């Protein structure tokens, strides 16, 4: 980094904002905000009891063109995916990461062939586990790592995402609080992906089309 440029830019900013050498008041204001992460206006929409919150999530995710099914437990996942693919005449193949929550699932009862690892771009379908979801907007949250490589969220055409019903929060702020608890204050995984429906573009005559560079379909499996 060019130190002199940083000094020049920062010097101009300091003069413009009226910084002083001591500046304790401004420093305290900044330290307090960074430490306290105050919440602003939280819309009432998502502030619901668990059952209604889940119902709102499902409704909002569908409005964003995702499909959602509720299944009783992890054991029901293979059948759900196999049926989905079969009904659409798609190959019974899926790529997934090393998420321990999905490790015990027995795919052998179905025709599904499962491969592990990140996507190389040739996979038609992928399976991920979400870390949470936002009822207010029907949004999933996924985090990077060997458990759920980020490429699985974007390269395949059909993206299946497992979400635990208990992980549905009312708002984005609650998920951030959860990240802080898990990774530490001010620390983040390399990538946090908030996903609301399948990819789309309106770049040609403002006509909305599903399936741009990311998945054409997003199928959410809510467990429990």
């Amino acid at each position: 980094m060019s130190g002199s440029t940083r000094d020049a830019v920062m010097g101009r900013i300091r003069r413009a904002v009226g910084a002083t050498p001591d500046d304790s008041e401004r420093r305290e204001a900044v330290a307090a905000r960074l430490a306290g992460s105050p919440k602003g206006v939280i819309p009432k929409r998502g502030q619901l009891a668990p059952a209604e919150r889940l119902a709102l999530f499902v409704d909002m995710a569908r409005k964003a063109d995702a499909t959602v099914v509720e299944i009783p437990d992890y054991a029901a996942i293979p059948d759900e995916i196999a049926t989905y693919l079969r009904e659409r005449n798609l190959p019974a193949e899926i790529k997934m990461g090393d998420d321990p929550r999905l490790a015990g699932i027995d795919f052998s009862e179905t025709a599904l062939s499962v491969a592990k690892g990140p996507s190389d771009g040739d996979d038609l379908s992928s399976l991920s586990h979400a870390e949470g979801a936002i009822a207010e907007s029907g949004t999933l949250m996924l985090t990077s790592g060997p458990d759920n490589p980020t490429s699985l969220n974007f390269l395949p055409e059909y993206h299946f995402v497992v979400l635990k019903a208990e992980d549905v929060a009312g708002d984005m702020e609650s998920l951030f609080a959860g990240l802080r608890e898990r990774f530490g204050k001010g620390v983040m995984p390399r990538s946090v992906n908030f996903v609301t429906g399948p990819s789309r573009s309106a770049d040609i005559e403002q006509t909305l089309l599903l399936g741009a560079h990311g998945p054409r379909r997003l199928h959410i499996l809510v467990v429990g």
Partner: protein
Amino acid sequence: MQITSQTFKANTVKALADVDLQRALRHVEKGFIGKRQKAADALPEFEALRDSAMAIKQHTLKHLDLYIDAYVEKVEASGGKVHFAEDADHARRIFLDIARRRKAKTVTKGKTMISEEIGLNKFLEQNGITPVETDLGEYIIQLRDEHPSHIIAPAVHINRDQVEADFRKFHVDLDPERDLTKPETLLSEARQILRQKYGEADIGVTGANFLIAETGTSVIVTNEGNGDLTQLLGKCHVVLASLEKIVPTLEDTAQILRVLARSATGQEMSVYTTLSTGPKRAEDRDGPEEYHVILLDNGRSNMLGTEFEDMLRCIRCGACMNHCPVYHAVGGHSYGWVYPGPMGAVLTPSLIGVDKAGHLPNASTFCGRCEAVCPMRIPLPKMMRHWREKEFESHLQPTAARFGLGVWAFFARRPKLYRSAVSFAMPALKLLGGRKRRLRSLPLAGGWTKWRDLPAPEGRTFMQAYAQSGHADGGRS
């Protein structure tokens, strides 16, 4: 890029005569206005969130030095690097250094307006590096060797049949008999072509909607997923961002996100909101090996503490241009540089100089719609007036004022357009007139109303009043 803001008037004349452009511009109103309104109406807290978002940016700008320091420290702690760039030329040189060190041949790009601002594509080509735009709109623009005409819908000035012609011309390896009459097939074709490019890229470039001081994170917001693939699959991720993108915390980001998508496209949330912090971690199976942020000033620090500071709150949602009758009539290219519409009319003179862009602040009917919809409550009309005062001080006023009248005369000669422009303007003008119902200066007619007061309109245009008073013809052009 070549700046043509000086010839704004000539640009508009050309734009108005451009049949294809006029055809395409119809999609702006159709595509954006109703959707934004619906999304705003669906969230009772929308206005309160606008206040909250505005207050966050105001606080950040007052403490910008401290938040930048905190941000840089966090980026470095996560293994990334921040490069301060004084201006466009400096930013390009920093980029080239990174590219040379990595022996880069191909660079994929998510949508970034800063790349346009620093003219990165041409510069890369001159240095033997191939830039590949991956956003569908940007890709179309790149094929046509044009510039975006809108900050979130770069190809809004192009029609489907034009895209089809371009794809046939450039994708010569594909079957010439293929059917490309549907937008869907154009989208699949672009997807297929760009698919191969992501993984081949030595560098993936994105912009940033936010830089978060608390965590050293850059945030991009997309619908296509192209920016995400760009930054994920390139071996090195370079973020181009200007310094006012800083926000303090994750919570602050969540506040502003709630007004961003609603104001831009009328979505509750854009499809992908991606937070990136540093390069690939030891245990990661995918992700870039290096993570750089080029933090661009290019005139912004000089806006701080001035009457133009408010403009630094802009989150580039595009609502102001989507609701601007002048933009609807002449499109984005007329503005002659990177940023069109009301936000461009204020920002462009700040960044490239009032001598080059002095005409732009006159590109307004002062109807007030831009300010009414701006999620960050930026007083755009007031700031355009500031610029006109500055022009006056630097003796540029006479031409500008004449020009203002010229635009007015132009609208007046085209009654239908004039009516649509002015019917937006009426309620605003009535407000401006206040209790005395006299206007001291009428937008676009500055040179004239300087000398006489105009009676403030009653909230209806003459044509509307005429029609309602029984002259059924009044509404027809």
